[in-house]
Each structure stands twice: as C-alpha cells, then as structure tokens.
C-alpha cells in the first residue's frame, strides 16, 4: 500500500506541486519586475513633478505667487508627493522662508488633509501626519495632537509628543509624562529627546512638575533634562531630592545634574557621596566635584586613585587634572613612580587622553 502511495498517488500530487510551484515562481518573478516598473515610473513621475514644484516654490518664496495659486496647481491626489517634496525644504529652511513655507501647509487644504490623516489614517499614516504637523509648527493642530497622545500605537504617541514639543505646547508636558508612564516600553532616551525638543522654555514648568512628582522614573528624567539645560534655579530642589532619596537611579541623575549645573551648594552633599557603597555614585560625585571646582578634596582624590572600581579611579584622576596645577603634577609623579599598579595605570590613561584629546 505504501509502495502504491509512493509510486502512483504521490506522482500525481508531486506533479501538481511542481506545476503549482512553477506557476508561483513565474508569478513572483513577474511581480518583482512589476514592482521595479512601478517604482521606476513613480520615480520618473516624482522627478518631473518635483522639478515643476521646485520652480513654483521659489516663485512663492520670492512673492511672485500666492498660496492659492500654488495650491491650485497641486491636485489633492498629489498631496502625498507634495508633502514629501516640502519635507526636505522645511527641514533645511530657516526664518522667513520657513514661516512662508509652513503657511503654505497650515493655511491651505493640505492642513485639513493632514488632520484627516492624523485622525483616520492607519498607524503609519497617523505617525507621518503627526511628524509633519510638528515640522510645520502647526499650533492650530494642538488639540488633535493631544488626542494623538492617547493613541495605542507607540509611534503615533511619540510623534504627537514630539510635535507638541516643537510647537512649544508646554502646558501639555504633564499629559506627555503621564501617558509615557502608563505605556509598556518606556525608553528614557526617547522621552529625553521629547523634553529636549521643548527647549529651555520647559525648564520652569519641569521644575514645577519636579516638586510634586511622586514617580522615581519621571523624577530621574526631569532632573536629567534640567541638568542638560544647566538650569541653575533647579539646583536647590535637585539637591533636596539627592539628600532625601535612597534610590540609586534618582541619586545618580541628581549628582550628574548638579555637576552639569555646577551648583556650588551641592559640594557638602557630594563630598558625602564620595564614600557611597555604589561605585556609580562615587565616580559621579568625584566628577561633579571636579567640575564645580572643589579643590579641598584634592588629597582625598589621590586616595581614590586606588579605588577598586576603574571608573572611580579614572574620575578621580580626571578631577585632579582639572582642579589645579598641583593635581596635575601629582598625577605625573603617580604615573611614573607609584607602586600602586591600579593608580599608576589609570593615571597613565588619563594623562594620555588629556595629551591626545581623545
């Protein structure tokens, strides 16, 4: 019976399979060439359209054409191309030219098309629209962007938040942070890029949020952003958090922030942190003290050159180098004559880094 299967029944099956596969192979090859054909003709069409639009946009920027005249030349079916065409100009232009080009989008039918896409498009289209709205700084789309923050798709949320930051909607910061917290995959770097997009205007509201913020993750982020902008008025609040919080993640960010801000009042707390059990706290405290310029710790820093952790040793050497001439001389002596191998090695690395500039 098995023999029959292999010899008769299966022969028909395999023949059919061969024919089906031959058909599939043929169709796939045709499909691939069709794709290439479509892509090439789309490129040609795009090239032709863009060449015409380029001339038109320059006439518009020079005031020879009005927005109505331009939009009359761009049919609705070509909006996707036109959006793509404008993107590179919007990214490159600044000042009046940017404002004029942005008005071409925000004051015409193209804007309602963008809003329509943001509300009704698939997730990809929603993301792209949100991104483009931010690109043209369309403040009138704020309410739609806020609604977009609740979108289930991470990409749409991110682009809406980024666009809100671009249009300077500082009052939406709380919603952005709140939404960020309840999402599944929070990436610190992504949220930081949103906070940084707000610019220095965000510092004051961020400080206000920081005072009432219960969540450790958000505290770390806000402190990080305030440190990035070196917002001095935040120094005291950050210092209070540093002294009151046991959590390492928050403490590390506080130390980094007071170091970047160069907050003088932080020196006593930082000196205490030098004795912390966690190497990250020790190394950052030493780095911050070196940055603020506390030369009273120089002798202690020499001891830290022999610390068990490489980064603590390196930061100590770095701080000694930046604090004073005396510190630099001490480093040279240690590099050449110290019997402590760890201290000598790290000092050599630091001195070479400083000499070469790497």
């Amino acid at each position, binding site marked *: 019976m098995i023999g029959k299967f292999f010899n008769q029944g*299966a022969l028909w099956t395999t023949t059919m399979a061969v024919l089906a596969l031959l058909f599939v192979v043929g169709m796939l090859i045709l499909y691939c060439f069709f794709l290439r054909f479509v892509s090439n003709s789309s490129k040609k069409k795009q090239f032709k359209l863009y060449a015409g639009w380029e001339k038109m946009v320059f006439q518009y920027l020079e005031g020879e054409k009005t927005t109505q005249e331009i939009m009359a030349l761009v049919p609705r079916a070509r909006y996707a191309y036109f959006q793509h065409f404008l993107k590179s100009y919007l990214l490159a232009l600044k000042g009046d030219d940017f404002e004029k080009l942005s008005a071409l989008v925000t004051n015409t039918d193209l804007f309602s098309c963008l809003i329509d896409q943001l509300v009704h498009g698939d997730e990809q289209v929603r*993301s792209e629209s949100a991104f483009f709205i931010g690109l043209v700084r369309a403040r009138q789309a704020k309410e739609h962007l806020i609604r977009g923050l609740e979108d289930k798709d991470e990409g749409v949320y991110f682009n809406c938040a980024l666009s809100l930051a671009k249009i300077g909607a500082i009052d939406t910061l709380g919603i952005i942070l709140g939404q960020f917290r309840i999402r599944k995959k929070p990436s*610190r770097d*992504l949220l930081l890029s949103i906070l940084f997009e707000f610019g220095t205007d965000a510092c004051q509201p961020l400080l206000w949020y920081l005072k009432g913020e219960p969540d450790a993750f958000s505290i770390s982020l806000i402190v990080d952003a305030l440190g990035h902008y070196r917002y001095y008025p935040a120094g005291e609040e950050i210092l209070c958090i540093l002294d009151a919080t046991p959590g390492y993640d928050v403490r590390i960010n506080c130390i980094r922030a007071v170091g970047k801000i160069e907050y003088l009042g932080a020196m006593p707390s930082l000196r205490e942190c030098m004795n912390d059990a966690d190497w990250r706290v020790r190394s950052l405290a030493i780095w911050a003290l070196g940055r603020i310029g506390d030369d009273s710790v120089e002798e202690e820093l020499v001891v830290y050159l022999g610390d068990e952790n*490489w980064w603590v040793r390196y930061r100590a050497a770095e701080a000694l180098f930046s604090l004073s001439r005396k510190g630099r001389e001490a480093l040279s002596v240690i590099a050449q004559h110290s019997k402590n191998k760890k201290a000598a090695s790290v000092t*050599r690395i630091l001195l070479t880094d400083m000499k070469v500039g790497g």
Partner: protein
Amino acid sequence: MVNISIIGALYIYNYFALTYLLTIGTIYFVLCFVSFKTIRKYSAKVSYIDIKDLFRYGNTKAVSVIVPAYNEGNSIINSTSAFLQLEYPDFHVIVVNDGSKDDTLNNLISHFSMKRVPYGMVDSIDTMPVRGFYRSKEHPSLLVIDKENGGKADAINTGINASKDPLICVIDADSILERDCLLKVVRPFVEDENVIAVGGIVRIANGCKVEQGRVLEIAPPKKFIGKFQVVEYLRAFLFGRTGFDAVNAMLIISGAFGCFSKDAVLKVGGYRAGCIGEDMELVVRMHKILRRQNPNTRITFVPDPVCWTEAPETLKVLRSQRVRWQKGTIQSIMLHKDMFLNTDYGWVGFFAFPYFVIFEMLGPFVEFSGYIVFILSALFGIVSLPFAIMFLTVAVLYGMVLSITSVILEELSFKKYPKTSHLLHLFCAAFLENIGYRQLQTWWRFRATIEYAFGSRGWGKMEKKGVGK
C-alpha cells in the same frame, strides 16, 4: 529477509524525509510571511523620520568600534580611514592588531602618525598580553592596540577591555560600513532599554565599485559563485534573521558587524577565546545568562544598516568558510545544549534552538542521506523514477520560491541593486543555486559535521584578495 528489512527501513526513511521537508518548508513559509510584514513596517517607519533627529542632543550612547585585525596590511588603512569617517556624534575606533605577521601595525603607525603611549585597560577579561598602545594627536578617536596572537575572540576581548564607551560595535577589518550605519544600529538601544545586542545586515561587496573604503556603485558579483552567495545572504538576513527577531529568538549576530551593550558582554564574560563560531556562541550565551536575569532582554536585528563584505570567489575558500560556519554552529549548540526545548528561554528554547539543532546541525545529515536513500529507493522500486524526479523538482522549486521571495523583499524595501539587469542576475542565481551549489554546500556541511565529531575543530584558512582600491 534482509531485503525486506532494508526496504522497510527505506519506506520509513522516505516518510521521515518527507515530513522533514514539509516541516522545514512550513517554517520557512512562516518566517517569510513574518519577515515580509516586519520589513515593510520597518522601511515605512524609517522613511519619514530623519534618524539624525534622534541623536542631535548629545544624550546618545557613545560607541567603541572594535576592529580585530590579523594580517590585514593591504586593507587596514582604507578600512580604518572609512571607520573614522562614520556619521555618529560620539564614537572611538579601536583597532586590535592580533599579532599580525605582515605590516598591518607599521602601516597604521605611519599612515595615522601614531605614537606608542603609556596606556592601560578599563576592564579585565583574560586575553593574550598586550605589547603596546598607539595613539595620535591628529586622530584622537583612534586607538591601536598591538597584542600577541590569540585569535579573533581574544582580539575583540582586548578591544572590549580598552573601551570606555557603553556600546561596542564589532566589525571585521575588511568590512565596509555605510556612513550612517552606526546611527541605524544604535537606534534600537535608544528606543528600548532592554536591548542588549543588535545585528545588522551583511551584503556582498564583490562586483561593487569600491574606493577608499566606500561603496560607490552597487552591482552583483560577476562570477556565479558570488551571485549565489548574494541570494543566500539575502535569504539568511532578510527573512531568516528578521523572522527569528520577530519572536526575540535570534541566535546569530554576524561576526562581521554587530553592536552590543558593553555591560551585557562583560556580564557574560566576553567572547569565548578559541571558539570557532565565537559570534553565535556569544549571542547564545547572552540569551542563556541574561534572559534569566531579565526576561525582557532583547537581542534584535535591523535590516537597514549595511555592512559590505568580501565573499569567497573560489570553491576552495568558500568550502573553508562553510566548514568553519558549520563547526561553529555545532560547537555553539553543544556548549549550550541544556537550552534545547527549555521553556525558561521562551522562543529561544522551544523554537530557535531546536530549529538550529534539527535543521542546521543535523540538516546536512538528513539531506545528504536523503539523496542516497532516494537513489536506493528508486533502485529497489519503492519509488518510481518519474516520482523521484518530480519530488526532487518540488524541493528545488520550493528553494527557488524562497530565494525569489527574498529578492522581492529586497525590492520592496531597500532596492540596493539599482538596475533591472541586476534583478535578472539575481533571479538566474536563485534558479541555479538550487542545482548543484546547494548540494555542494550540503556535502561540505556534512563533512564538517563528521570532522567535528572526530575532533577536527580548527578555524581553517581564509584567503581574501580585497575589494576595491
């Protein structure tokens, strides 16, 4: 009596081979479907966001590009110069001269005006002794380490020890990276804190116009042996790795180009020196150790950042490469065999690892013996000759469907090969590679498995003539 038992065995084996073929065919089909969706989604995502936007505030993670070099005197200057020109806000290039017998080190010293400096290591993975450190004021982000020969894994570990950056990117000295490669490969680390390793796509540079470590014009290789490998690489990367990545079960990041969190690599003790497939072994070990500590750990793949590499153009060198790959796969599997069907490792334990055991490690045995059994079956009259021919045709055509699909995936996403004639070349290769070339590979892998079983576990010799000027 003997004849009856042989015939019975042949029947059973035929059914086994058929089941095996159907299973692998189904897996490939599913992988293909998943990759199609993933790649379309990815290419749509990257089409509208300028990647540099993500990196413009200086809150990026610094990267150490580690380049292990052994006898790379001909190409090391071009490749190092190209690595130094990569687009990324904060990175260092660490070239580790692994006791080269040619003028690799001297070329680096004279071209980049390097001087021996007093320097040291940040971390302490065990490696062969370091002879000296070299740096230059003109190229402050370049560090050259000269060490005694210890193999590729040992050289990479030395680079890791010297790195001060949170991310390390391991690159072959003869590889060519696209300029924005680091931006693309680091992006997953920015978007998801659970990502500990990212692999990029490796493509074949033979046939391309290459100057000063840059690919200027892309074209398929002139020789068929090169074209076959182009199709193979497209299949392996575009739907193999993308498919496995969709379920966080990727077991290989190519040794030619991969980016890792330095902390994660240190936690697992660095690369295993003396290992044949050190790239796969590291990734498997990372899954094994780090996924237990954090089940959300991700090892992922990005189909976009391209690393170009030179493919072997003679059968002898190709054989040596494939034998090494097969032995590396077996070694990595055997070292971590306790992961087989172990649900503690999620999809890695009950899908990726068994897949590698059954279809990659044992695959050549099944395929090779399949050919023999099929011939015997025809001789004993178990299968008729027309059926045998038709069956083999099905297998070949199915292979073609997969190869062509990978070319279509490429066409739908990245369109690296610009001319329509290039597509024709790739389709010809997709057709022909299933007749002869694939069987040759099976034979090499079969022999490699036998050699491994009998204790031959060396790296073999890999000659490269270098691409471009």
